[in-house]
């Protein structure tokens, strides 16, 4: 098989270890998330790992594409340090405020600009938004088929892939023609760590930044103006729990607990 062209879409997300620091401004109804470092969305790391494995097995060229503000460029450097060949950041003020449809539109435009591809890999969903919508929507904009919940990928030949997709209580085995978009789940692999050997090279590599004028996109379809959905309200859910601490010797305390649970009808 000649070298495969693989594209991986990654999303920098706020580091979950710092999520307790996210606060809600009650006046503007916006989330305050400054100074929270960003990490590559964990499921996207599995997508990156799979791309690298395919490249090692069959020979290929892996390009990472991300739509994000320039502040997260270090996350793309991490992808290069892991071993991808190229990283492209799609960044423009007018891309901001995008919902999944507007995001997918821009990502697809970036991918189209790269030329012919065999496979696009994404994580099944992101840690923060968890919609799982971008993969299928990008596939629609690219006019190629897609499969989600992918646990196993085997190239039969350049034009055909054997795919295993997880479903409730089982899985589906399929044969899919390329080019195709596959979104992967955690079970597919264990992502590698960055090797110190690659760090210098990764820091020196140029990361291309494509703005609005570099892409063939319609102003009305990007960012806030291209987003059919809008957030009307944001609120912190209230944790209204009784918070009753039961005191005493184990035998007594459990008797008390069981009685209370029985009364509430949960036992």
């Amino acid at each position, binding site marked *: 098989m000649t070298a495969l062209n693989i594209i991986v879409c990654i999303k920098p997300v706020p580091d979950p270890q710092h999520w307790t620091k996210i606060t809600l401004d009650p006046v503007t109804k916006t989330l305050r998330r400054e100074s929270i470092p960003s990490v590559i969305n964990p499921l996207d790391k599995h997508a990156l790992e799979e791309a690298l494995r395919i490249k090692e097995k069959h020979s290929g060229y892996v390009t990472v594409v991300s739509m994000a503000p320039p502040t997260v460029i*270090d996350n793309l*450097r*991490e992808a290069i*340090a892991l071993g991808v060949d190229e990283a492209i950041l799609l960044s423009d003020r007018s891309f901001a405020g995008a919902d999944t449809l507007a995001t997918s539109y821009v990502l697809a435009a970036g991918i189209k600009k790269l030329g012919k591809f065999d496979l696009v890999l994404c994580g099944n969903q992101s840690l923060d938004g968890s919609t799982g919508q971008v993969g299928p929507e990008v596939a629609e904009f690219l006019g190629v088929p897609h499969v989600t919940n992918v646990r196993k990928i085997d190239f039969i030949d350049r034009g055909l892939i054997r795919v295993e997709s997880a479903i409730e209580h089982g899985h589906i085995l399929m044969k899919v023609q390329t080019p195709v978009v596959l979104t992967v789940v955690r079970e597919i692999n264990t992502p590698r*760590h*960055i*090797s*110190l*050997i690659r*760090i*210098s090279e*990764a*820091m020196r590599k140029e990361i291309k930044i494509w703005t609005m004028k570099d892409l063939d996109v319609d102003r009305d379809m990007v960012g806030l103006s291209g987003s059919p959905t809008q957030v009307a309200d944001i609120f912190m859910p209230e944790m209204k729990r009784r918070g009753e601490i039961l005191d005493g010797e184990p035998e007594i305390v459990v008797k008390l607990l069981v009685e209370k649970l029985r009364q509430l009808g949960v036992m």
Partner: protein
Amino acid sequence: MDFGFTPEQEMLRKTVREFAEKEIAPKIDWMDETGEVPMDIIEKMAKLGFMGVLVPKEYGGLGMGHIERMILLEEIGRVSPAMANTVQVHHLGTAPIVVFGTEEQKKKWLPPLAKGEKIATFAVTEPTGGSDVLGMQTTAKLEGNNYIINGRKCFITNTHIASVIGIAAKTGEGPKGLSAFIIESDTPGFKPGRKENKFGLRGCNTGELIFKNCKVSKENIIGKEGDGLKVALVSISNVGRPGITAGALGIVRACLEEAVKYSKQRVLYGKPISDLQAIQWHLADIYMDYEISKLLMYRAAWLRDKGERCDAENAMAKFWATEAAVRCAQKTITVFGAYGCMKELVPQRLLRDAWLFISGAGTSEIMRIIMARQALKMA
């Protein structure tokens, strides 16, 4: 004066931190309980290049500097001081070959050491003493094309996992009476002796090396006869000592994080104890010790990277960081109250680990002697 790290150094730190948290952290309890070295972790670190930071690229290493090495060891030490010490002693064992080795010796030993395929150590201390280097009794007698080595080294790290062992031994009398040798572990006449059962830094292998008529080719001498003291002191001062400093700094960092986290959670008198001035002063002291140790350590590394002589700075950083590690671990236990004494929680282990660093690579007393030499030149 730029006190910042480069983006490359920041990525190095992030990478090692993630590795330590994901791969090393789950092994800590096992290491503390059994006292054994998790060789699967050593293998993983080796594949990612951790073992060859100071080895030049042409021999398969990363060709990085001392600042990068300090970042690597500080981040490992923050999670496991025992693992940091294992790695740093491997670097120490590699150093004499890098600095003083012949081209043949470098070509022979550096590639497997850089890749972590072989583990190294360097041994000076004997039952006769560590500080009293010239009092050592291990001898190396030249007979034809070989040296016959007899003696015993103790309190050495990596004794049972190293296959490339550097030692200093007596080939004569006085300061020019020591020579440095590399012995491979499968050499007849060599065997590792007892494994020590330490109260801290468990999971790092400490033990004895026994040489009984061990025949070693004269090609294995590092430098010339009589260079032993220089080889030992330079390697220990520039690589061994800073390695311990970095592990100790990791402990101080861990103390700071544990103490702050706990004090914010622990509620007494209706509010978190982090609101109490007494606790805040403890936290301030730990923070101050962290910053001081950090600055001394990285400045000494910066001098080494510039190629400048920095024995006093290395000693000062080691003294401060290791003493601070013990001090801050004690303070952390204090902040935790009775919980600080419970084996399930981290602070008691930090104290047990910290104490081992005081005597490694030169005691605090020896560090003062080295600093005094420099101080005497100051006026």
